[in-house]
């Protein structure tokens, strides 16, 4: 290597030269697609609180995993899926939100108890609660991809009756849609998507990826198909830009994603209000 060479080709390291950044972008891409698509139906059905709660129920799964010697992600996913089935079976019952809320707080308490027994894990707590996308390895990316494809396939399979049941439950039921089955299958999808989203933004902040892009998309798009597409795009852009901003500012990725989510929801509101004025 000659000296001249080093002068002309000063190594310009971009964020993509780091393994952890590449993995983070892969993870954000997978989770963006998943959260955007699933989130749209979640908002459409008015079940965003259930999605929020599922993530919390994952917390004791993650902290308890250490006690029985399985990976935190496995523990978290198991808990969210079980809770998803439970919520799905509750259906549209009165007081469902109360029941979910009580289970949610109990779950966080349980997670705390598990931490009490397994103190070695305590350092991970912040990562579980607020996410640590920069710590994702390639094996986890692969796992996210496989799970993501699986849950999108289920979503594809149930999309039509899900849409019908979400828009007009009484009519859908009369037409032969099994509301309970659709509800449970969808909640399993939501549970898997939530588990994926926690890998980026953590248990406490899944709303930022699961709900904010979808709710913004619903305000801006007309019709369900363009709504789902826009929701996925918004979630992807939110996650990508959040990650890039975190790289440049050294602030937490989760902060940027929540900030971008809030901003997109706010802006979509202004835009929608303007359109409404134009219509009137």
């Amino acid at each position, binding site marked *: 290597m000659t000296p001249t060479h080093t002068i002309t080709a000063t190594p310009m390291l971009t964020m993509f030269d780091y393994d952890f950044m590449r993995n983070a972008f892969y993870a954000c891409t997978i989770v963006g697609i998943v959260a955007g698509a699933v989130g749209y139906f979640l908002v459409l059905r008015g079940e965003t609180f259930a999605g929020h709660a599922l993530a919390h129920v994952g917390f004791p799964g993650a902290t308890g995993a250490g006690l029985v010697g399985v990976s935190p992600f496995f523990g978290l996913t198991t808990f969210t899926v079980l809770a998803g089935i439970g919520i799905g079976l509750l259906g549209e019952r009165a007081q469902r939100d109360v029941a979910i809320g009580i289970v949610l707080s109990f779950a966080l308490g349980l997670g705390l108890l598990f931490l009490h027994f397994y103190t070695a894990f305590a350092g991970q707590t912040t990562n579980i609660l607020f996410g640590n996308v920069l710590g994702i390895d390639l094996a986890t990316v692969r796992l996210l991809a496989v799970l993501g494809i699986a849950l999108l396939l289920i979503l594809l399979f149930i999309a039509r009756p899900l849409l019908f049941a979400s828009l*007009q439950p009484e009519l859908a039921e009369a037409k032969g849609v099994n509301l309970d089955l659709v509800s449970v299958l969808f909640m399993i999808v939501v549970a898997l998507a939530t588990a994926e989203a926690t890998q980026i933004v953590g248990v406490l902040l899944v709303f930022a990826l699961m709900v904010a892009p979808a709710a913004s998309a619903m305000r801006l798009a007309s019709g369900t198909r363009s709504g789902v597409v826009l929701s996925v795009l918004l979630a992807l852009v939110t996650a990508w830009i959040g990650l890039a901003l975190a790289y440049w500012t050294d602030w937490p990725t989760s902060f940027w994603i929540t900030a971008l989510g809030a901003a997109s929801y706010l802006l979509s509101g202004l835009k929608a209000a303007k359109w409404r004025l134009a219509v009137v």
Partner: protein
Amino acid sequence: MNAAMNVIEFDYVTLAHGKRKILSDVSLSVPDGAFVGLLGANGAGKTTLLRAILGLLKPQAGRISVLGREPSRGNPLIGYMPQTRRLPLHSGLTGYDLVLGAAGGHRWGWPVASAAEREAAWQALELAGAAELAQRPLVQLSGGERQRILIAQALIGEPKLLLLDEPLISLDAGHQRAMVDLVRNVSRELGIAVLFCSHEINPLLDAVDSVLYLGNGQAAMGSVDEVITAPVLSRLYNAPIHVLRAEGRIFVMADGVEMECDAHSHDAHTHDHGDAHAHNV
């Protein structure tokens, strides 16, 4: 189906929600092609009766026969218009989207409509006189126009029986008349039997072949003159009822107060959506 067949038959049917009996030992029959007004106070069991016919509620006792068979969920020969108007106004959906969604909405898979389903949706929209409205977002339609879209949904797939739960709610007199005429004409044209649920008999007076009046766990069926009488209604309301006729209208009174009018304070836009998401209508 032979000509003498009844589209609906109830033999000593008891319907209940848990321990609460809604209808006890009710027997009735609706002949093929008949236009029946289904009347009764709030909570008298009109919707429950419709759900039993749809196969969504098993009778506690007795036997129900619908189009010659036991009621079964998803019977394509029954068109249904539910009462709850929880229409998704915020998502920019059009009437066509909604009708198409009902055309094959019970099948698994991604919502891509087949040519046959699109054809069926347009046919139903034409029948309901809603083809012109179909491409506009639901949020831009008036109450009467939305009802037409919902009627079109009920007409999907050449039904033999229409179950309409309160199609007149929240409509003004002119739109009520238009709705009744529409249903009357379509049912005559296609020979569809109709169970038309309403709080009030007057908008239906010119259209109905018979009325089915529910109250006090019982049912009375017959012509308007047979059923809307002081003795029959006193039995159904379990209170002394007076029936007055004036200028071609019927007034059902209890203690000097008109019974059927207060029902219209019912707000059709109330929805039990417990969520706080984008209701930017």
